């Protein structure tokens, strides 16, 4: 038994389920702690004119007439049967809505991460290669810009600038999936992934720079250099490879963050992803929609973390040995 518990894979699996359980409890009760309910969210101040009989009818209609424990366990029970709930507003199952929204966010996150890595890793390496010199200052300045320019500001500016000056506003055409219209879809993803990628490249630049600087000062690099290993081989095989672990860690974290946290960008660029789905659900107090979508996002986050761990093993033989 002890052996089984000591097994890394099992520990991680148990940890993952515990995390998801915690998220489920947290999101369920947090939503109920918010002021207002679906009736006031839907009717606004008109709800003041409801008679008691009308209110009772609506409470039943929205399914908020049960006690909290009953609602919670009914939700969890349904989840295990693949039923994520029903959105009264959209008149659709939450599962269908989530299945439609997830690929949008996933595509945006992948594009943003590719751009962020494309910008962040080379600039981080270049900065570290001449620490304190002009290229390092430039790299650091770029990273500072990425960190300090608010995404909503950059997004709105780009959106307005391209629309007004070039009539380029693919996001105003209504969202198209890649399979419906690949050309429009890629155009619709261009500006949002640029904005997100630019923002995420900042921590990647900093992480890459710090990691490369640290590795460069280590004994085995000095030994390799003394043995006459070429600069190129040294840079890529010895330094970059060993600097990858923190870069992969930050990339994994940022990717997970993007899956749930790209809401502002999805909002500005009218992308119907999961972030917007959650936001709309919160505004409308559609509890089933929000809690199930958040749980799906948390589940994906957990999976990404597990995959990141696996990637460590692929990159670093010392992790494999452990």
């Amino acid at each position: 038994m002890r052996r089984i518990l000591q097994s890394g894979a099992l520990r991680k699996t148990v940890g993952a389920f515990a995390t998801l359980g915690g998220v489920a409890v947290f999101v369920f009760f947090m939503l109920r702690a918010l002021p207002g309910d679906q009736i006031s969210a839907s009717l606004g101040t008109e709800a003041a004119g409801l008679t008691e009989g009308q209110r009772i009818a609506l409470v039943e209609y929205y399914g908020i007439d049960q006690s909290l424990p009953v609602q919670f366990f009914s939700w969890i029970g349904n989840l295990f049967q693949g039923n994520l709930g029903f959105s009264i507003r959209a008149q659709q199952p939450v599962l269908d809505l989530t299945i439609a929204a997830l690929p949008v966010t996933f595509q945006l996150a992948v594009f943003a991460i590719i751009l962020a890595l494309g910008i962040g890793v080379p600039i981080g390496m270049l900065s570290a290669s001449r620490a304190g010199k002009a290229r390092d200052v430039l790299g650091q300045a770029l990273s500072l810009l990425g960190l300090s320019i608010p995404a909503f500001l950059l997004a709105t500016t780009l959106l307005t600038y391209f629309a007004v000056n070039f009539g380029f506003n693919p996001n105003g055409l209504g969202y198209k999936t890649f399979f419906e219209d690949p050309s429009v879809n890629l155009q619709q993803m261009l500006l949002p992934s640029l904005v997100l990628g630019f923002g995420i490249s900042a921590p990647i630049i900093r992480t890459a720079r710090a990691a490369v600087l640290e590795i460069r000062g280590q004994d085995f690099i000095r030994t390799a250099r003394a043995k006459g290993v070429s600069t190129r081989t040294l840079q890529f095989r010895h330094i970059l490879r060993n600097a990858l672990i923190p870069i992969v860690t930050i990339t994994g974290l940022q990717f997970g963050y993007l899956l749930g946290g790209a809401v502002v960008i999805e909002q500005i660029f009218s992308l119907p992803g999961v972030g917007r789905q959650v936001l709309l659900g919160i505004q409308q107090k559609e509890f089933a929609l929000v809690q199930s979508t958040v749980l799906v996002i948390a589940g994906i986050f957990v999976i990404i973390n597990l995959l990141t761990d696996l990637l460590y093993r692929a990159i670093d033989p010392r992790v494999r040995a452990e």
Partner: protein
Amino acid sequence: MTQLKKWSVRPVKAFALISVASLVLAGCAAAEEEEETATPTATEAEAPAAVGGNLVVGLTVDPDTIFPWKATQFQAFRMLENVYDTLTAFDADLNVVPALAESWEVSADGTSITFNLRDNVKFADGSDFDSADVKYSYESIQVEANAAVARSTLGGVVSIETPDADTVVLNLATADVGLLANLTGTNLAIVSSDDTEEELSTATNGTGPFMLESRTAGQNVVLARNPNYWGDPTPLDTVEFRVLPDEAAIAAAMSAGNVQLALFSDPITARTVSGDVTVSTTPQLGYHALMLNSRNGVMTDKNIRLAIQCSIDRQSVLDTALLGEGEVTGPITSPAFRSDPNARPCPERDLAKAAEYLAASGNADGIEIDVMVPQGLYAGEVEIGQAVAAQLADANITMNLDVQESGAYIDRWIAGDFVAAIALNGGRPDPDGMYGRYFPSTGNLNQVAGYSSATMDKLFADGKVESDPAKRKEIYAAVSAELEDNAVWVWLFSGYSYTATSDTMTGFTPMTTGSWQYLRTTGLK
């Protein structure tokens, strides 16, 4: 080494490929957009509307329901008023005109209204419209368990008769002069007696000019021309209500020519729209007010309420908070009954008089009040609160801003759980529809109004039954005076709405009610 090289080079290649492809595609798109939005020639600009075409309307959020009796959201109304009809309607000047009822007669004592229904009207599914549908609709709205929003409008209807297929008689407990105007609301839409709420929550079946073609949650709603519409067929083939969640995104889409019609609440964003677009400013019937709860705390003292009223320079608040985009108003904004903002105890700010009122209340040294302010409900809400607070400070009235998230604000507003509140309330073309719910002691919003009196009850009862327009005006002028003289609330100003229309659109008239009913006459050049 080889493996590492492969790993490091592939993403770079992929990234480069995507970037280049995207830029090429972007370039192509820009060219296409340029072609689409090229300035029309003089001939094109003057061309009359052609039958056909697809109009795209930009909305920040999609309609939250397609069932008319439960709709309260602006976006849902704008769509549903083009799908369903009511017995009566407003024209552009807010006169009550026939809709599904071709004409009507009111009995001498006002307690019975006979509607003669229009002939040859069909629902979108091809079934005939008749008096049974009106009876079914109104009686269903009256059922408490159906939780229809406009149930109280039909509160005075005691029975509905259908002597024949083309006639409906509403029998009222007492005369209700405002009823004809109140029946124009989309919440009183006539549906087929064969349909249920469940069916009409997933598909529409109205007698209006359009019908639902498709609905994708969070993305768009598409209406198509109703081939069975009784009136002139709409020039447009379809109207797409497209969701662009941010007003800046809608402005960008209009500038790029992707959207032809949108409504802006923020004047600054409306001004960023460029290209062949006209932005019209329409005064609204809704009004901003500092609501004072006369049943709560210091507001029970009329002198304190009057002191607050005299301390505020409304125009200055409007200029500060909303860039002067609006008009100072009295309580009633209904066009035919509009209150004179100068007929109030302090038409201009009068700090000396405010001090007198404070002294009379026994608070010569000043008072402190908490004012509930919403956040996230409408543009300028907190700014209005701050501007009012700054003005009250000059009169020794310390106003603590109690800023509440929209959900919390609505909960407390509904319960009347505030001493004072900054609010944006809706207006109606008829003053009874506007305030008949608030200020009579039996009104279903009286707990929110926080005020009632025997005088007010009598005035509203008289206004409801008086059919002489001149006498009715006098009654509502007295209502207005009663509200202002007692400083029941402090009415501040009405704002504007900003309707942006592409210059390719014809036949569209924005209305002060916010209605988009003229989509039915809209065409594209």
